[in-house]
């Protein structure tokens, strides 16, 4: 689908534009927060908004492959930016948790991390994101070769950890978490079905002689 791809000379600019646009919701939430625009519990609201954007960018990053496979839309040039945006939001979410929410009281934070499954899952997601962020450059891709692909499959457990972190932190399952569950199940389920789908596609293109 050539019509949808952006000419190469604009591609770099559009990636930088994605970074800028992607960071806007976080900056806007911060702006609202310091101006009393986040309601009665601004710290919680700010923390939650950052978490939601992390989850959304994780989902978008993992939507790149199915979009290409199923609809011929190639957004691979933006995948690194989507992944890094997710990482920045997770980092910001964690920082707000440590500072504004828990007030850097390390004893209570450590207790929380070691005792609460939902916080452990969030921490696991953050820790798994770190090697991915560190290897999100061309040098690492060249250096690691096929192992880079293996390593970046961590994106799947990261998304799952992010979803569970969210679901376990809420009091009841309402429509919003159900939407996220459906999206994540579709994105991860697609990975299970993908090898067969690809075989079938290849088979149609070039029938193998028996």
């Amino acid at each position, binding site marked *: 689908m050539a019509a949808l791809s952006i000419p190469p000379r604009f591609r770099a600019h559009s990636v930088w534009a994605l970074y800028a646009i992607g960071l806007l919701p976080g900056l806007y939430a*911060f702006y609202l*927060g*310091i*101006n*009393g625009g*986040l*309601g*009665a*519990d*601004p*710290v*919680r609201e*700010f923390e939650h908004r950052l978490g939601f954007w992390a989850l959304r960018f994780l989902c978008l990053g993992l939507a790149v492959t199915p979009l290409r496979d199923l609809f011929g839309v190639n957004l691979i040039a933006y995948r690194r930016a989507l992944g890094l945006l997710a990482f920045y939001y997770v980092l910001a979410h964690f920082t707000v948790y440590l500072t*504004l*929410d*828990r*007030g850097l*009281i390390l004893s*209570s934070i450590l*207790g*929380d991390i070691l*005792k*609460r*499954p*939902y916080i452990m899952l969030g921490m696991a997601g953050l820790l798994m994101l770190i090697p991915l962020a560190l290897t999100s450059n061309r040098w690492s891709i060249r250096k690691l070769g096929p192992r880079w692909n293996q390593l970046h499959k961590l994106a799947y457990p990261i998304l799952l950890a992010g979803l569970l972190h969210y679901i*376990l*932190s809420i*009091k*009841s*399952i*309402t*429509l919003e978490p*159900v939407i996220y569950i459906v999206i994540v199940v579709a994105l991860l389920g697609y990975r299970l079905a993908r090898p067969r789908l690809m075989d079938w596609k290849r088979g149609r293109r070039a029938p193998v002689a028996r």
Partner: protein
Amino acid sequence: MPLYRPPRIASSEITPQNLYLSRRHFLGTAAAGLAFAGAGSALAAPLKASPSAYKVEDKPTSKQDVTTYNNFYEFGTGKADPARYSGDFKPTPWTVEIGGMVAKPQTIDMETILKEIPMEERIYRMRCVEAWSMVIPWIGFPLSALLDRVEPLGSAKYVAFETVVRPKEMPGQSGFFQPLEWPYVEGLRLDEARHPLTILATGLYGETLPNQNGAPLRLVVPWKYGFKGVKSIVKITLTDKEPPTTWNKMAPQEYGFYANVNPAVDHPRWSQATERRIGEANGLFGGARLNTLPFNGYADEVANLYAGMDLKKFY
């Protein structure tokens, strides 16, 4: 400065004459207010009450926060939903059916309650099970005053409460996805219900209850988590068995019947040791968490109700 001062009521404070005399004036305004609200308006009407010695020293949470940050799933699960989507709710006229193990079962209308039971202002802390808290100047009366009118039988051990079901006026009660089973039901042991701190609230901040806070009549039990405070009550039943309660039915391992505020007993998924006081943060900064107190700071008053009970087991 103590966080909570147990009431020491001086004789001079017992119904001052001017207040007693102004009751007639209050009745007039209340009746006018009810008539006004009856016209379909969601506006709160002024509601007079005598001051009470039951008040905490903490700074009250702003009226804005008290009336826009609510858990009232009948109007939606978002904190702002109740204020946003309760406009069609009609709290007048209103009757409460009181029955079960009582000598005088009856259906009482709100007008009678407001006319015949003296209202007091009680400034209470409110601690939500989600680890946030507020300080709210309620107007209301001891639940025991209502129980006395129906004369519970000696066999009655518990009090069950029920919220109204009106899917047409409460958008959270209709539609595809509903988080709870309706009606919302709650309960107390009879001695808890009779405790002087336990009130039925009819107003806050000097006015009748806004719809989003549980108009026209709701339960307030300040030493328990907020979800015990069943709103828009239409039915009160005295019984000899522990009544089912909504959140306990939904997740029994997470929400018990007692639901006493207890920093030592965590919610299975999060800590109850600290809380964030709503409205204390200046923007995003300075909203340090407070340590949660046993029985929400009312231990001197209520701990004896649970003497000998394992509070980890009866959470």
